């Protein structure tokens, strides 16, 4: 017996019987021998038994050996069978490298896309936020019920909520601030957050190194201490743990680093540093400065809804007590998860859906390939069956092939996913929480393996089961039988291609809708010109304490900037539209002759301070009256310019020019004459509605938080270093907080949309490419099989165009079915897109029509070459074939 052939497994009973037969045979032969030598039979039996020794012992010992051997054989048979199947399957790659590469490559694409997006979704959305019991943490936001705008909180309101509600275990706030790191040259501006007592307890953020702030840190007069962010620690301090307990220079004075925060803390932001900000006596009165981040931790057992009701009650009391500040205002407790991740969830969910659809297309494509191969191999497999291979063995062999393809595809897909994740990290908007630490980890790899295994089963098992189900005799019975299974196989492939087309259409529709949304959004007029404008933001307060000093320093910087070669104009403003750290201010606007009662909230508008050149530099059009001039100085009559929205709201049907109003800008209301009306600008994004805005001359206020908008002749980036240098030339200790092209700031506001659009488009393109491969493969195969038919048609006088038309009409028919199914699926799927759409309905006929057209075109294009080949079938040769 050869060692190669597996011996049939034996049961324990069979083993025992064989052993007994062997011993019986031995005893019989012994007796025969003895009898032949003349021993009487009875004595011979006795002698044979005596010579054998203990029958019971021998039987037991032999049986144990045999059973152990059998077990061992079974084990090796299984592993050897597996190995043989896998060897058989890997031979496939050598025999049909084109087929195997195509199949594995298809799976690799699907796995890579799904794994990349899964990693991003898992990392950004699914993992718990890095705060202790983060489901109890809520972010507090004030809401203006009149405009519906959500804002930060004011410290006075926060103190009231904290003192008068019972639902919270801790409450605190973070006050945005800026400091300069002065131990480096030039001084580097750093985002700093002044955090009050209760903030760390509410957030539940334990530092990575060192300690949190202690109660004593909040006592006034204590030495300055800071917690630094992980990003600052790694980027600026080389991840050196020795930084703990050391002093760093902030705005020229030392501050001791007591701790390092954990990485990827998404709230309030991931950069900068935190310092203690004690509550002061004035805080209770400040109910207007609602630019602070409020945070609270629910008491154990208190639901968010109960806490919200508690807050509503206190908000009602506050509105009654302080009508001038709190009327029409509410406060909302938003789960921190919702606050941090709510805006990114729709985009990532859509991307995940898109990746799964691509995976589906990839599976359908691979299944189609395996089907095509399976149809050609039916006879081969039938021979295997006839030679004694069991159905199970055949099935195992086919599955092994699927596994080898899936393993190769999965491994390649995982490698691709590493590149994909890197691309996502580079492409993703930096505001995407936790994106900085995105990587493929064990969970991602496991996901890839699962996806590959499922892809193997989905794409490999169906054809395998179908094939192995046909009996050997059935398939061997000759050509007619082969033709039946052939037709059935073609039907399956057609169904798969239709499914691919439908899935690709869903992706295409999504990408088209997103593209249209972006186009509509970008077509919104901004009200100003961002191209060739650079903005530099500086804070002059610390180094120029008086208004006169600030004005002199501002004028010096303006002149120096204007003298830089390539500069065409310099405008100065406090709140530049689209600026990432825009400093908004609001003030009351009391029109002369319209009294406001004590209980009524006076109209509040955005108050922006601007230089005379600002409107010209930004190309904000002057509608009426005049712009500011150099004559609008501090000692000159106080003037103001309003925008279209304010004019329409407070002076409906009137000409505001010449009217007077008391406007509070940096202090108590001052009476000003309205000298002009300018156009609206979009304040923060393409879809942000213009707001009521009043401009007052810079020279009449002496503000110190200023943005210089510089109009350049050439590329703004080229001039930027010279502009920065110009500021430091005026005062070497003055840091530039932010600097960059305005166009870049405008583009940044659509980065998340472009990110989702780019990935969806890439996915749709891949799906279309795979579908094209599927269509082309199907038609190449069917037209080859129909060569005889075409040859006969041509021989009978059919025109070649008619033959090509036969193939193409089949393609159009399949395409139409795919489009119909795809559109139906799109209508269902696109509803999940609506959060990402802008002024485009998910059922937009134009978008769906374009997508359907592209798909039909693709179906025809995929069938074009096979159709041409069919038209070129020579009548004679094919008739001779077979």
């Amino acid at each position: 017996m050869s060692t190669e052939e597996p011996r049939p497994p034996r049961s324990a009973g069979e083993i025992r019987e064989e052993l007994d037969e062997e011993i019986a045979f031995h005893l019989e032969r012994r007796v025969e021998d003895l009898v032949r030598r003349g021993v009487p039979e009875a004595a011979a039996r006795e002698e044979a038994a005596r010579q054998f020794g203990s029958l019971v012992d021998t039987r037991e010992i032999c049986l144990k050996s045999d059973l152990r051997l059998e077990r061992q054989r079974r084990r090796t048979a299984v592993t050897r069978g597996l190995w043989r199947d896998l060897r058989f399957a890997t031979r496939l790659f050598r025999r049909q490298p084109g087929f195997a590469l195509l199949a594995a490559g298809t799976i690799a694409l699907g796995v890579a896309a799904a794994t990349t997006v899964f990693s991003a979704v898992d990392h950004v959305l699914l993992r718990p936020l890095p705060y202790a019991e983060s489901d109890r943490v809520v972010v507090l936001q004030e809401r203006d019920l009149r405009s519906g705008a959500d804002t930060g909180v004011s410290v006075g309101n926060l103190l009231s909520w904290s003192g008068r509600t019972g639902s919270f275990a801790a409450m605190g706030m973070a006050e945005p601030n800026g400091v300069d790191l002065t131990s480096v040259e030039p001084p580097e501006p750093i985002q700093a957050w002044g955090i009050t007592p209760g903030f760390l307890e509410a957030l539940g953020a334990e530092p990575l190194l060192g300690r949190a702030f202690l109660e004593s840190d909040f006592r006034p007069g204590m030495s300055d201490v800071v917690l630094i962010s992980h990003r600052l620690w790694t980027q600026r301090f080389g991840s050196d743990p020795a930084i703990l307990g050391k002093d760093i220079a902030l705005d020229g004075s030392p501050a001791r680093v007591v701790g390092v925060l954990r990485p990827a803390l998404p709230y309030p932001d991931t950069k900068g540093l935190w310092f203690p900000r004690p509550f002061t006596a004035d805080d209770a009165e400040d109910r207007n400065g609602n630019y602070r981040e409020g945070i609270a931790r629910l008491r154990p057992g208190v639901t968010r809804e109960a806490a919200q009701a508690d807050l509503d009650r206190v908000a009602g009391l506050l509105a009654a007590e302080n009508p001038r500040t709190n009327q029409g205002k509410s406060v909302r407790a938003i789960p921190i998860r919702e606050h941090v991740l709510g805006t990114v969830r729709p985009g990532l969910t859509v991307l995940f859906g898109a990746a799964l659809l691509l995976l589906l297309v990839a599976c359908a494509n691979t299944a189609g390939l395996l089907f095509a191969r399976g149809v050609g191999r039916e006879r081969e497999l039938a021979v295997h069956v006839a030679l004694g291979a069991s159905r199970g063995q055949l099935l195992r062999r086919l599955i092994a092939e699927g596994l080898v393809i899936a393993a190769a595809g999965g491994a390649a897909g995982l490698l691709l996913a590493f590149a994909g994740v890197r691309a996502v990290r580079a492409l993703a908007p930096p505001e995407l929480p936790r994106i900085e630490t995105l990587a493929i980890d064990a969970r991602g790899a496991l996901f890839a393996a699962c996806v590959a295994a499922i892809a193997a089963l989905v794409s490999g098992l169906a054809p395998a089961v179908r094939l192995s189900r046909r009996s050997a005799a059935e398939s061997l019975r000759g050509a007619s039988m082969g033709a039946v299974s052939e037709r059935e196989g073609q039907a399956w492939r057609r169904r798969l291609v239709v499914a691919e087309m439908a899935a690709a259409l869903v992706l295409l529709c999504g990408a088209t809708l997103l593209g249209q949304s972006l186009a509509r959004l970008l077509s919104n007029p901004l009200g100003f010109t961002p191209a060739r404008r650079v903005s530099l933001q500086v804070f002059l307060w610390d180094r120029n304490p008086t208004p006169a000093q600030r004005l002199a320093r501002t004028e010096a910087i303006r002149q120096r900037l204007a003298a830089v070669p390539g500069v065409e104009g310099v405008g100065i403003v406090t709140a530049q539209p689209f600026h990432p750290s825009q400093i908004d201010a609001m003030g009351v606007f009391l029109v002369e002759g319209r009294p406001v009662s004590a209980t009524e909230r006076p109209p509040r508008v955005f108050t922006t301070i601007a230089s005379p050149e600002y409107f010209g530099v930004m190309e904000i059009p002057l509608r009426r009256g005049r712009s500011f001039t150099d004559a609008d100085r501090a000692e000159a009559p106080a003037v103001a310019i309003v925008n279209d929205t304010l004019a329409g709201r407070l002076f409906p049907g009137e000409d505001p020019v010449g009217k007077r109003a008391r406007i509070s800008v940096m202090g108590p209301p001052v009476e000003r004459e309205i000298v002009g009306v300018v156009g609206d600008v979009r304040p923060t994004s393409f879809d942000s509605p213009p707001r009521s805005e009043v401009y007052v001359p810079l020279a009449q206020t002496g503000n110190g938080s200023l943005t210089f908008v510089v109009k350049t002749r050439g590329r703004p980036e080229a001039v930027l270093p010279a502009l920065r240098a110009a500021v430091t030339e005026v005062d070497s200790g003055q840091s530039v907080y932010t600097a960059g092209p305005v166009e870049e700031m405008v583009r940044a506001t659509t980065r998340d949309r472009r990110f989702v659009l780019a990935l969806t488009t890439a996915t749709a393109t891949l799906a279309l490419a795979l579908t094209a491969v599927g269509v082309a493969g199907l038609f190449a195969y069917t037209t080859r099989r129909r060569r005889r038919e075409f040859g006969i048609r041509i021989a009978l006088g059919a025109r070649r165009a008619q033959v090509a038309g036969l193939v193409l009409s089949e393609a159009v028919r399949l395409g139409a079915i795919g489009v119909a199914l795809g559109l139906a699926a799109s209508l269902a799927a696109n509803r999940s897109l609506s959060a990402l759409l802008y002024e485009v309905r998910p059922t937009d006929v134009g978008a769906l029509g374009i997508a359907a057209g592209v798909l039909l075109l693709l179906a025809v294009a995929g069938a074009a070459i096979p159709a041409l080949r069919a038209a070129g079938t020579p009548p004679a040769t094919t008739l001779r074939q077979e």
Partner: protein
Amino acid sequence: MPENGIALLRGTLDVLILKTLSSGRMHGYQIVARIEERTGGELGIEDGALYQSLHRMEERGWVESEWGHAETGKRARFYRLTPEGRRRLGAEAAGWIRYARAVFRVLEPVEP
């Protein structure tokens, strides 16, 4: 012969069986008969011990068995050496011969 035969050293039976099988495949009784014939019945081997040894060696992969037909036409279990068994035989036999020679040199009557 067992009661007046020489007691067999452990592991010796294995070598004897492997050596016997080296001339071809045979069933258990043939092996017994061949060993008895070669030793003149001097070694007291219980037949049961021989089968225990055979089955143990099959488990270890030194011999393998299959069912066939004996001269008489009866079904019998035949054994033959595996390549592993052949290697084993070479090693064991060499060791045995060295051992026997050493013992014999001591026991040999010394010439005056």
